[in-house]
């Protein structure tokens, strides 16, 4: 009987040791996942003037505190060279995600859709290496005084190869949405 107990105790101990040795100490890991917290639109007036910056900012990423969003205010009958910038501000210093979009330009495309009556026309979007718009830079032309909206959408072409083509619309089933922000606009 005693011998049996010894055997059992041994078995228990050995397997216990085996099990605990599998378990390594867990390290507190930082939240390393990339999020886009901020989209900035930088407006450089053609022919000189102060650079304007408007942004959508969700400092803690999706959920949590609500995002803040600027109204885009531009002068009438003017042209602006606009550059879009995407940031991850949960990291210090902030990570510039625009560089990643530019590096994979053939799989990304910004679309700019002003509402009718907003008196904004977006043109001259820059192209990727295949000559298809990527839209990190472009030209915004304003008309007479007006209020309206503009929707800025970044679409990701997930196919391999991405198959991005000039004719692809913003709602193409080839691509999915990375960013979709609608700004109020005012020309005054």
């Amino acid at each position, binding site marked *: 009987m005693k011998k049996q107990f010894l055997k059992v105790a041994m078995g228990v101990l050995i397997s216990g040791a085996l099990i605990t040795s599998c378990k390594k100490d*867990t390290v507190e890991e930082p939240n390393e996942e990339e999020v886009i917290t901020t989209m900035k639109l930088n407006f450089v007036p053609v022919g000189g003037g102060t650079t304007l910056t408007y942004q959508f900012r969700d400092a803690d990423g999706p959920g949590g505190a609500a995002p803040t969003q600027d109204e885009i205010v531009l002068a009438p009958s003017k042209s602006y060279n606009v550059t879009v910038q995407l940031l991850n501000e949960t990291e210090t210093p902030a990570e510039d995600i625009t560089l990643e979009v530019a590096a994979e330009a053939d799989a990304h495309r910004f679309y700019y859709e002003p509402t009718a009556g907003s008196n904004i026309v977006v043109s001259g979007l820059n192209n990727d290496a295949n000559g298809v718009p990527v839209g990190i830079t472009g030209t915004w032309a304003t008309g007479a005084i007006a209020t309206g909206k503009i929707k800025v959408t970044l679409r990701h072409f997930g196919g391999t190869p991405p198959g991005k083509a000039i004719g692809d619309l913003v709602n193409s089933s080839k691509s999915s949405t990375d960013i979709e922000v609608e700004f109020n606009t005012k020309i005054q």
Partner: protein
Amino acid sequence: MKLILIIIIAILIANGAIAQPCVYKLSGHVEDVDTKEKLVAATASIKETGKQIITNEKGDFVFAALCAGEYTLIITHVSCDTVVKKIILTKDYHIDILMPHTRKVLGDVIVDAQKGIANTGYKKELSGRALEETKGLSLAEALSKINGVTMLQTGSTIAKPIIHGLHSNRILTINNGVRQEGQQWGNEHAPEIDPFIADKLIVIKGVDELRYGSDAIGGVILVEPKGLRNKPGYAAEINSAYFTNNRQYVLSAMFEQQLKKQPAFRYRVQGTFKKGANAATPNYRLNNTGSEEKNFSITVGWKKERFNTEIFYSHFATKVGIFNGSHIGNLTDLLNAIAAPKPNDVFLGQNTYKIQRPYQDVSHDLLKSKTTFYMGEHKFTVLLAGQFNHRKEFDIVRSSTNKNPQLDLSIYTITEDFSWEHPKKNNFSGIGGLSLMQQDNSYSGRYFIPKYFAYTFGGYYIEKWSKHKWELQAGLRYDNKSINTTRLKFNADTINYDFNFSTFASSFNAVYKPTENWKLNTNISLASRAPYVNELLSDGIHHGTATYEKGDISLKPEHSINISAGINYQHPSKVFGFDLLLYSNSINNFIYQQPMPNNPVLTIAGAFPLITYKQTDAILSGFDISTLIKPVPAFDWGSKFSFLHARNKTLNDWLILMPANRLSNEITYNLKDSKIITNTYVSVEMLNVMQQKNIPSDANGKQDYKAPPAAYTLINMNASATMAVYKTPVTISVGVRNLLNTVYRDYLNSMRYFSDEMGRNISLRLKIQLQ
């Protein structure tokens, strides 16, 4: 058609090569294990042939004129537990059978004695031929052959079982005696188990659930391997399969041995490799739907008369692609996908084994030690197990240089289970036990559930009484669970919540057998389940459904009262039998996801509908019926129908994502055993899945943007034959799923928003048993 021809030719060739008449004898001797008394009038029967012989005054029986092949020998005697033995017959064979009166003898042959008290309540088993037909499929696909069990899918590669409408954390999966602890909470998290380990897949409800937890509101799945070898010598088995649709191939091999010089020592090694390319629907092939699986296990056992110990280690690793046309950025994308009749061509047409983002990479390791010993007539079991589950999900990312997973969860679990069985006395037998669990979950990458430590302790006691026509069973269980959670924030802050839940369960089961042919069963079970961390603390975008999911820390445990009644009838001449189960599972504080239509969450990717975890009172009621008609001995006609109504009582509405009612009819033609070919059959199944019309109304917040798909009918086929090739049993099978290449979508597959289901899939299986 070509395939069938090839097989016929193969059979003919085999015919010529090895014409062996059916001349083998299977003889046996039956005696009482304790008294060594020869047992007269024990019944020996062979399941496959249906032959029955009563032992003579010397306790002997002989089956003559048997063909080579695999047989299941069943020995019953009035005062003993039933003994079941698998025999591979390649020559005349003699077997000595020791019938157990008491629980003193351990042995793999004594199935009931090994598992303790037989479960007389709800128990559905998949084994033998039905299990063979599922070789190469996932665990959930195999289980869905059981009436009342369906599956929740994400494409063709990820599937998890649903029992009577309930899944994930409401079901316990017991892998070789150990409660599986992975990331079961997610709809796209399939069980991390190699089905080739199993000799039997069993679904149980009622009293025996209490041995595994108080939280099995939906039921318990037992993945049961075969016992270690019980006869000196070795055996090996090779299973291989090929599936035409996605060019999937499977190879699984097993080797086991009991040493001649040291018969107490026994071991088994087993491994499986599986790889599939992109799957095709009838009209198009879906990119990135391949999968790969590499598993192995080692079992080592030491068995003496009153002491038995076993160490089991298994490793499971899988990599599964997720259709890349299903990537959803926001609600607009989902609505666009729903509006499109088929996915865009850029996501179609590649026939490759290559897996790209998005994909899942999951591994599960289990190390277990189980020791059983006797003190007097009392049986004690100590089960220690360690598990490590690592789940990495790789989403589509902007930068191809990003090699990191977006979701990375590691969960370590250690369990200690102790049980005690008292000897059978005055028609009473019983088992009691204590269970402890320590668990550590950590994450990196995207937050979805927090890091946590959980500690559980619990105890149970089950007693069984049986006499004459009655069997009564009752049991109790209590569990206490503490969870300490930590959420890491990017600015090095943490958010901590601590929880403690007590859960109680009990069950009572009564069986009445008025005659040999009838069995009436009634059960009432109380179970309660503590909310899981994802229900308490999830916080993030669920990309598959384009919703923002938010947990609720104020959730309380769910309480269920499940009442069921079953009737089973078997005609004495076996020409007709039926099995009916009626159930009603009433769950108070049922945790579900409630849309909050007035509070969308605005993110940089647009506005997401908010869905929070809420509690309601729910009732899931339904019935399963199956019949078997054998008009002539060669033909079987089996029918199964399952029906479910799932209501949210508080909102007076339906519950979402519940399986549609379904009917299956299967006709099997069993060919007579010839001189060299045995166990030959051809079967055709027609499966009708109705449309799910009982869905939540939009009045309580829109939960789904696409109406459930239309009803569909599938025709499936199976054919199999076993032959002896140089005295080695070789089984060749052909299966066809979706024979007519029907275009359909299933309500419980999240890919129904994007694409059709898999088209015709022909499978070829080859099984070789060596010894």
